């Protein structure tokens, strides 16, 4: 993997590309490919499709670069393209692979009822028992079980440290919905971990 590049003058780079300096586009790719990878890895399971989509993201970005109005960061705009292409891919491939928020919600509620009242000692014990590398591995599996959109939101917020507003631009979901989905996703993660602990899997 190439090292991420930081673009200090996005406008300058975009202008150069629009004037015909195609090679400058590789700077944009190197600066944003990790973010695109984060989205595509969360949304698309098939490796070959992911490879094709990753290229499509940048070809589309290149073709539409003249339409970029600098109303957001360039990386946010490219992330939006990646997210849209992923959603289109999921829609075409398998409609049910798009998360059904109500199913997630029911699942969430079920977990909550299973746990009944969260006892305070459990929290301390969970924290002590599963942490560090072990917790990372378990979390990785639990995150993977989430729906593609929830996984992506979690990644954009916690790993990419995007604001609610930026995530809202990327996903074209209202900010309130982004917050709500993130809340549910975190709660599902937390409850699944507690459920795992209570069942003795940990």
């Amino acid at each position: 993997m190439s090292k991420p590049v930081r673009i200090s003058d996005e406008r300058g780079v975009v202008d150069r590309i629009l004037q015909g300096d195609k090679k400058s586009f590789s700077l944009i790719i190197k600066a944003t490919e990790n973010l695109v990878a984060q989205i595509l890895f969360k949304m698309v399971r098939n490796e070959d499709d992911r490879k094709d989509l990753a290229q499509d993201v940048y070809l589309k970005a290149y073709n539409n670069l003249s339409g970029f109005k600098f109303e957001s960061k360039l990386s946010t705009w490219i992330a939006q393209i990646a997210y849209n292409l992923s959603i289109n891919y999921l829609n075409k491939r398998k409609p049910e692979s798009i998360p059904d928020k109500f199913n997630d919600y029911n699942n969430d509620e079920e977990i909550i009822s299973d746990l009944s009242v969260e006892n305070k000692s459990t929290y301390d014990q969970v924290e002590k028992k599963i942490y560090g590398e072990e917790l990372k591995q378990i979390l990785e599996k639990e995150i993977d079980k989430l729906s593609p959109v929830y996984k992506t939101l979690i990644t954009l917020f916690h790993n990419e440290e995007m604001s609610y507003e930026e995530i809202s631009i990327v996903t074209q979901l209202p900010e309130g919905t982004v917050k709500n989905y993130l809340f549910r996703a975190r709660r599902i993660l937390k409850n699944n971990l507690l459920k795992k602990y209570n069942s003795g899997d940990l």
Partner: protein
Amino acid sequence: MKSNHLTDQEIQEFLFGKSTISKDTNDHINSCKECESKIANYKTITESIKAVSNPSFDFDLSGMVMEKLITKKQRTKLSWHLIFSFVLGLISFAIIIVCINFIFAKTNLLEYIKNGIDSFTVIIFSVSLMIGIVHAIEILYRHKKLINIINAK
């Protein structure tokens, strides 16, 4: 001081939201072990999420995209070059033919135009068209060869 325990939503709002919490809620968090523990768990989870290794592409994405863009550039450049060469070739031949024909006609320009295109002109036009087509085929062949070289890299 707030007497009820914080809900999940309040805890997440406290940890990840931008809004500030009330003094009552803050006092409750500082004195309630249960809520404090819930907050600690959410913190642990989010810190662990950050610690999970980020995925990355195991192929040269930049190289692949740039290759496609350059190939596209070559195609555009060559197709434009092809049309330009073909038209330029035809015009050049036509001018030469008309000039030659005019010289051989041994007449003035007005009379020559009045007489119209004779059979000799038609023959020469056909030959020049053939030359133009051969020229275009050669350019196409070279273009295809170049694309193959680019794709093979």
